[in-house]
């Protein structure tokens, strides 16, 4: 009489949506189309950028005593852990860090199938009156960060909220800007940026792919 | 009555050799290899099967009392559409047909409609309450000449009442048609008791509630030497008991509905109450046993148990819905599909199960005479090469509760003749011209 389709509930996103090394030479890639693929950041570039960002954060905030680093899952969370580790080795003490999942605050939920909710873990020191450093891999329209600000607002009232991203690719749709940027990569909207991190993807690199214009 | 002549050319008589058949003055005038008659309307029937007019021993006409779902007239038209020339009006109307007055009224309505002979069935007990015998004699002696008595809808559950009824009808050459359902085992039952009902959370109607009554009643019929008919047998166990009884010479006959020859209880999984019926759809094991029994004659007849219901009583949750399916218009196609198509029966056997035998059980002397020269021209034609898709919005009956909506059925009933009058030509019902 009627079809009840399974939800097709998504599993946590893993390697499926990124280009790995192997597929660069994949003969099944489309032929006859001008596909532009290039490595924008190598593993070394990423490492240097994260180190620089870590120093910049500490400099701007006069040390780490009031800082809480929160990464936005999935890759932002790993970057946050790395940045916290770097800052910790610079300062010689532990840095408060955790994750902030923004899925439930997104404004575009209805446009796609339901997304899995990622863990949110606020460190014991909390965010009240502290300087929160949000970490994400790519800054694009700004909507993710808007959702993160809403999510933070439910948790408490930080003194400041600052934003550090590995890549800023432009095309903002909201008045949002990053305080700390690994690399500015101007792109066209037809292109896409793929960030690969060792913790998930087995390799560190940032790739631009797609037609240039 | 105008003296219409029809020449049916080239149809296979009872599924046998092709021949021509001439209808004149309401009778079968001639059957032979080639007939010519310049006054007759010629109907080409090459490839079609010519059967005696179908006789239904179990029909719910709903009038008097529930005319919103069906009337004698609308049911008669639906019967003509299905190839029937005789219907038996079950007694569970409102008021119940337990007096001569009601049965004569139903009889007259059937005559007025003029599509089929309507033979009223009389209730066994007053008001169908199962306590006091109804006026069986008065009904038998009335214009309606009732011979079949049934409380169908209800079971005559009290063994003493059943015994007395079986004894009493002997005086009137009657037969008690029992709706076998032990009430204590089926309180609130919704569907067959089994794996499906346990999954669906619907209260079960166990097979033994039917079998226990059949067993009791065949023994009673034997003890008092009377005629018993079992309505709508649905279980393999019931079939075995009837087979045993017949082997001992007990005067028991039995019927099966078309839907119990085809449909099974897993259809209830949709919770669509179009599949809710009493007695319920059962398992494929039961369906197979019923088909074999109909083929070997353990089950004597096919009867539709045509049960019209208005939309509101089916357009709701299962537990709230009425029990029953319409079936006059699809009966012969279903029998074609399940029995002839599967090779279990030939058309001559179909004629026996759907015309000769029911007429004999009901004592309908003017029907079921097979296709013999001189007999009344009650004739049904089916074209087995044509299939058709059932559309509930196009049914002739007043109600739309058919379980076959959207199904394609093999075999289309094309022509029906009732006493020589064409009640259906080319699958279109022909209404009477009112003569002043």
């Amino acid at each position, binding site marked *: 009489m009627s079809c009840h389709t399974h939800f097709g509930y998504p599993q946590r996103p893993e390697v499926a949506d990124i280009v790995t090394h192997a597929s660069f030479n994949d003969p099944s890639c489309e032929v006859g189309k001008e596909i532009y693929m290039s490595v924008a950041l190598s593993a070394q570039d990423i490492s240097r950028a994260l180190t620089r960002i870590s120093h910049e954060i500490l400099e701007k905030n006069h040390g780490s005593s009031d800082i809480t680093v929160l990464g936005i899952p999935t890759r932002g969370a790993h970057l946050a852990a790395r940045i916290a580790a770097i800052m910790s080795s610079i300062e010689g003490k532990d840095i408060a860090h955790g994750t902030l999942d923004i899925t439930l605050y997104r404004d575009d939920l209805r446009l796609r199938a339901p997304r899995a909710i990622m863990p949110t873990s606020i460190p014991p020191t909390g965010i009240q009156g502290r300087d929160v450093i949000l970490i994400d891999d790519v800054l694009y329209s700004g909507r993710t960060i808007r959702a993160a600000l809403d999510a933070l607002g439910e948790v408490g009232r930080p003194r400041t909220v600052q934003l550090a991203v590995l890549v800023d690719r432009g095309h903002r749709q909201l008045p949002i800007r990053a305080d700390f940027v690994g690399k500015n990569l101007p792109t066209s909207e037809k292109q896409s940026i793929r960030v690969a991190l060792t913790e998930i993807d087995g390799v560190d690199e940032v790739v631009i792919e797609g037609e240039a214009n | 009555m105008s003296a219409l002549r029809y020449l049916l050319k080239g149809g296979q008589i009872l599924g046998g050799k092709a021949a021509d058949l001439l209808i004149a003055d309401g009778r079968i005038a001639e059957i032979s290899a080639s007939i010519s008659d310049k006054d007759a309307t010629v109907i080409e029937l090459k490839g079609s099967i010519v059967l005696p007019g179908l006789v239904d021993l179990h029909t719910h006409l709903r009038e008097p009392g529930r005319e919103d779902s069906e009337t004698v007239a609308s049911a008669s038209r639906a019967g003509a559409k299905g190839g029937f020339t005789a219907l038996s009006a079950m007694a569970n109307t409102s008021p119940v047909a337990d007096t001569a007055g009601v049965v004569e009224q139903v009889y007259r309505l059937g005559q007025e409609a003029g599509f089929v002979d309507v033979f009223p069935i009389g209730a066994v007990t007053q008001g169908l309450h199962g306590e006091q015998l109804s006026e069986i004699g008065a009904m038998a002696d009335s214009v309606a000449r009732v011979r079949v008595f049934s409380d169908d809808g209800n079971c005559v559950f009290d063994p003493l009442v059943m015994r007395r009824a079986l004894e009493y009808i002997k005086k009137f050459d009657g037969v008690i048609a029992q709706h076998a359902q032990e009430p204590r085992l089926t309180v609130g039952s919704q569907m067959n008791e089994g794996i499906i*009902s346990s999954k669906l959370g619907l209260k079960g109607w166990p097979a033994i509630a039917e079998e226990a009554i059949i067993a009791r009643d065949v023994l009673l019929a034997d003890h008092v030497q009377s005629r018993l008919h079992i309505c709508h047998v649905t279980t393999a166990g019931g079939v075995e008991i009837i087979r045993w009884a017949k082997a001992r010479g007990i005067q028991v006959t039995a019927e099966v509905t078309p839907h119990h020859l085809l449909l099974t209880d897993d259809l209830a999984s949709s919770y669509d109450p179009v599949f809710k019926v009493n007695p319920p759809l059962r398992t494929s094991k039961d369906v197979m046993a019923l088909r074999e029994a109909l083929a070997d004659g353990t089950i004597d007849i096919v009867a539709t148990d045509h049960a019209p219901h208005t939309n509101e009583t089916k357009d709701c949750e299962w*537990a709230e819905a009425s029990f029953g399916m319409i079936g006059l218009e699809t009966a012969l196609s279903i029998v074609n599909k399940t029995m002839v198509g599967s090779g279990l029966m030939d058309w001559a056997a179909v004629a026996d199960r759907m015309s000769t035998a029911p007429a004999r059980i009901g004592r309908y002397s003017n029907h079921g005479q097979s296709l013999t020269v001189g007999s009344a021209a009650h004739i049904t034609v089916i074209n087995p090469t044509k299939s058709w898709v059932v559309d509930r919005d196009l049914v002739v009956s007043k109600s739309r509760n058919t379980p076959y909506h959207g199904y394609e059925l093999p075999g289309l009933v094309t022509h029906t003749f009732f006493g020589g009058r064409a009640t259906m030509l080319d699958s279109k019902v022909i209404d009477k011209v009112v003569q002043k």
Partner: protein
Amino acid sequence: MRHLLSINDLSAIDAIGILDTATELARINDGQVKKLPTLRGRTIVNLFAEDSTRTRISFEAAAKRLSADVINFSAKGSSLSKGESLKDTAQTLQAMGADAVVIRHSASGAAQRLADLEWMSGSVINAGDGTHEHPSQALLDAFTIRKHLGKGASDLTGLRVAIVGDVLHSRVARSNVLLLSMLGADVVLVAPPTLLPVGVESWPATISYDFDSVIPNVDAIMMLRVQQERMTDLFFPNSREYSRYFGLNSERMSAMAKHAIVMHPGPMNRGLEIAADVADSARSVIVEQVTNGVNVRMAILYVLLAGGPLEVGSN
């Protein structure tokens, strides 16, 4: 349109996804955040044609914590109790614009009829239909079992659960048997023979009439409510005999494995199927089931309503 009418509507992955989502939501709810904007602007109708306070409040709390608007329609004193058909009630509520209907009804299959016949658009969530199913209860039960006994695994493989009581009339039992076995648990049904349905042999569970032999070997015991009416309907002689053979009293509780937990979907008949001190004991997770219920129902609403139409092959 996506519906949750039966556990059969879910794959194991779907079910685990709901449990995982509920786990995250529980963490959020335990913190300061009590309200999420996720379903802002959506309207959810609670169509409760059968009395139930706890399930209705649970769904209502879940919907409100996701900022959805809730319309409550209960049978008592409504047009439904005066004979208005389910169909008419549904079409009236539809005219008010509902994104989802949470329906509880005394007729098995009522939720499916609502979904199939499309008297209302929007998702249909079965909150208990007759004796058929109660999917959200099974999900919160699985969540509870996983939380206490799961040892970090995503499913329930290797766990043994006993469901005890009136299985014949229990939609909670039906949904739980389907879900727990789907997630890898072994289920044993314990009941007097009169309260097991014909056809139960085909269920993915074993059967026992002997409660005492089952108790030491299971990780969770789920007691089902036994209604007093079952005695007049000849299912067992009287409550004394029922309790003697199938009641969870302190003596039986002490025979349980050390880690094993006691569950009950509620409402309880203290003294009939479960002794008061067992219900209040440290092993009992009955009160926690209620909290888990809100989180699991939030997860269900999120999965059904937050996303847009499913894309084939979407990740």
